[in-house]
């Protein structure tokens, strides 16, 4: 298989980043985060993380604090954090089965990719049904009806297939929590990733439930990366775990990362390092596989509700995780994983339609950019339980403004309802349409001095003659500066958005799956233990 060159990677949406914080505020939040990491520092229980911090020059002290198990306070000096920020690479390459779907993220470059996210427990499937008014039988309507079921491998396969064919999905985070009882817990990771990798040629990302799964996972990823290549070739696809160059620009100028990367949440808010996820961070960092250091404090319960407090805290938490990774293996590829949410004030559930969800995220994007580390950001979750108007209205502000801020990697963007509890394929299709529109809205303005001169000439000439510019529109259409309508807008008077989106969904389901070759599947089954019967991955 030919290595992908830079030119062949997946196209990102370049924006002129909109900002929320002034440069001064970014600086003072950075200072506030450093202050927090020094005092109170991070509360830490895991031996492995503790050893890494100590070796890296952090002061640790065993403490027994009211109500908690005994642990250590780790005070991370500013100099250690600054060194970690320096060693974290500015460029992270996320490979894909199809090299043309490789993503290149650069911390200082506001180029945006959109992807799925979370691990919804429930899947909401839909079909259209016709209804007639009881009072006025001549009044009829087509409306979706729904059925909700517990997430399974079969749902995950279909979801990966859908993500493969939705044009605005740039990467796939396993978005359905497959709860098949037939899969033993120690084998869940390989099965989940295999389900995804089998059906999408885009980058696949997720958590690692069990650290024991890391090596089999890497073997799976390598085999998938060489799909279509001769087995036993000298350098199949260039994926080579343990090698420092992996996931970076190769000597020949080609890029080719693993088709898989991980997410870990080492810090529980506020400021507590969790033993087992911290251990995963260290292990994944040592394996040099791209890793999202994700934190999700909830403003109003586990973090201050006001944005300056939230951003200072989450930034400190991400910096703590990032420092751990860089101390474990300097230069390992990390993403700044921001998932700041706000609490509802009636029941302290996550509240994604809240304006602060957007404010928090925008702050994080700016912090990450100031460090030159690619930002994994969050946008596009609905609190609504069903696809449609409420969900779309809740999602649009974050879809639009987080994209406009230039976050490199926006997760959560497709199909999530009921605060990430539900994945709705129909809503994913609707979100794809909304993101299509958002991409056009944030398109940077591109005119040159010549274009402006031409415009003045056009105005002069039309003002003297017909007074109608319509004919001149054609040139601008060709120039690519005239956008398209919302994908599900109706030409007529009726509003049939849901009907159209459901039709599109059904069409996408009908498309031929882009599966791995049989030869690769055989090799995977031979090398990776714990995979369930292959028929369980079949969506036909």
């Amino acid at each position, binding site marked *: 298989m030919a290595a992908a060159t830079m030119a062949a990677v997946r196209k990102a949406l370049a924006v002129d980043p909109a900002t929320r914080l002034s440069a001064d505020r970014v600086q003072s939040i950075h200072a506030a985060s450093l202050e927090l990491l020094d005092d109170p520092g991070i509360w830490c229980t895991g031996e492995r993380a503790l050893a890494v911090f100590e070796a890296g020059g952090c002061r640790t002290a065993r403490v027994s604090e009211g109500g908690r198990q005994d642990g250590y306070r780790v005070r991370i000096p500013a100099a250690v954090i600054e060194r970690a920020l320096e060693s974290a690479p500015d460029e992270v390459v996320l490979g894909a089965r199809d090299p043309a779907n490789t993503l290149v993220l650069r911390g200082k470059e506001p180029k945006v990719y959109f992807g799925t996210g979370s691990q919804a427990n429930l899947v909401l499937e839909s079909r259209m049904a016709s209804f007639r008014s009881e009072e006025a039988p001549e009044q009829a309507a087509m409306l979706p009806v729904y059925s909700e079921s517990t997430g399974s491998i079969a749902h995950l396969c279909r979801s990966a297939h859908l993500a493969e064919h939705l044009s605005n999905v740039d990467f796939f985070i396993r978005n359905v929590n497959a709860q098949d009882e037939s899969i033993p817990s120690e084998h869940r990771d390989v099965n989940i990733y295999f389900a995804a990798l089998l059906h999408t040629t885009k980058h696949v990302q997720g958590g690692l439930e069990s650290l024991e799964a890391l090596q089999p996972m890497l073997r799976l990823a390598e085999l998938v990366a060489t799909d279509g290549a001769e087995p036993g070739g000298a350098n199949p696809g260039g994926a080579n775990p343990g090698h420092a160059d992996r996931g970076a620009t190769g000597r020949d100028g080609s890029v080719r990362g693993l088709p898989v990367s991980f997410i870990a949440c080492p810090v529980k808010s506020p400021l507590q390092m969790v033993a087992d996820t911290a251990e995963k961070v260290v292990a994944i960092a040592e394996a040099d596989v791209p890793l999202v250091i994700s934190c999700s404090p909830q403003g109003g319960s586990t973090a201050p509700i006001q944005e300056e407090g939230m951003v200072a805290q989450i930034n400190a938490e991400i910096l703590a995780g990032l420092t751990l990774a860089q101390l474990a293996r300097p230069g390992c590829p990390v993403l700044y994983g921001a998932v700041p949410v706000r609490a509802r004030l009636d029941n302290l559930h996550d509240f994604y339609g809240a304006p602060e969800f957007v404010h928090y995220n925008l702050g994080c994007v700016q912090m990450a950019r100031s460090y030159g580390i690619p930002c994994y950001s969050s946008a596009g979750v609905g609190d609504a339980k069903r696809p449609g108007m409420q969900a779309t209205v809740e999602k649009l502000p974050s879809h639009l403004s987080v994209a406009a801020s230039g976050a490199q990697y926006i997760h959560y963007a497709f199909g999530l309802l009921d605060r990430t509890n539900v994945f709705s394929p129909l809503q994913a299709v609707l979100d794809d349409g909304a993101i299509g529109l958002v991409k056009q809205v944030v398109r940077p303005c591109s005119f040159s001095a010549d274009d402006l001169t031409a415009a003045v000439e056009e105005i002069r000439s039309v003002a003297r003659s017909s007074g*109608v510019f319509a004919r001149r529109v054609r040139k601008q259409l060709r120039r690519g500066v005239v956008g398209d309508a919302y994908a599900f807008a109706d030409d007529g008077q009726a509003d049939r958005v849901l009907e159209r989106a459901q039709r599109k969904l059904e069409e996408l389901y009908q498309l031929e799956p882009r599966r791995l070759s049989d030869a690769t599947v055989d090799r995977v089954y031979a090398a990776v233990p714990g995979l369930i019967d292959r028929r369980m991955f079949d969506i036909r």
Partner: protein
Amino acid sequence: MSERDMLEEIRRSIIMGHLDAEDEGFDGSMEGTPGTVELVEEALEARTEPQQILTVFNAAMEEVGRLFEAGEYLLPDMLASAECVGEAMDVLEPHLAGTADTQKGTFLIATVKGDLHDIGKNIVITMLKGAGYQVRDLGIDVPADDIVAAVKQHKPQYLGLSALLTTTMTEMETVIRKLKEAGITDVKVIIGGAPTSEEFAQKIGADGHCRDALEAVEKLEALRSAS
């Protein structure tokens, strides 16, 4: 170039919405090549029958209409073609003089008093010119008396009135009443504009209402063949 080739060039030029040498045409490739206006001038110099050129105009616009219906053309494309025919008509008209049967008729149009909206009216003008009508535009905010005076002077077959405001659409009724008072009964009055409707047209005694410029072309054709 043979006469046939020349007529074919004119047809193609109209379909491409290629107005004149300065215009770049539908696909942006035609700047610097003779456009519809130059081609019609050339054809006339080569003594092509004006009547034949007119036939080509109609055929070309029919094709453009088909492309629009099929979704291949956007409205700007169709307007560009209509503008080609409109401008070319100005060149052709003096040569057609006297052959009365070639005239589809004169259309007088105005936005009524108190109303400044003219985007829709201008589209109607372009399309009607493109369809071969002689159009005279009285502009915007035109008092009823001026419209009546213009009808007396130019004796058009059709009068078009445009209004976009609920407050100015009543002015249309005034125009029609004043036409009657002046004893003018042989001009067909067509109205348009977003707040107007077929019912409103009937109520004020107009001869027809059009939703859009395409319907205007169709309605006039229907009125012509009826009379």
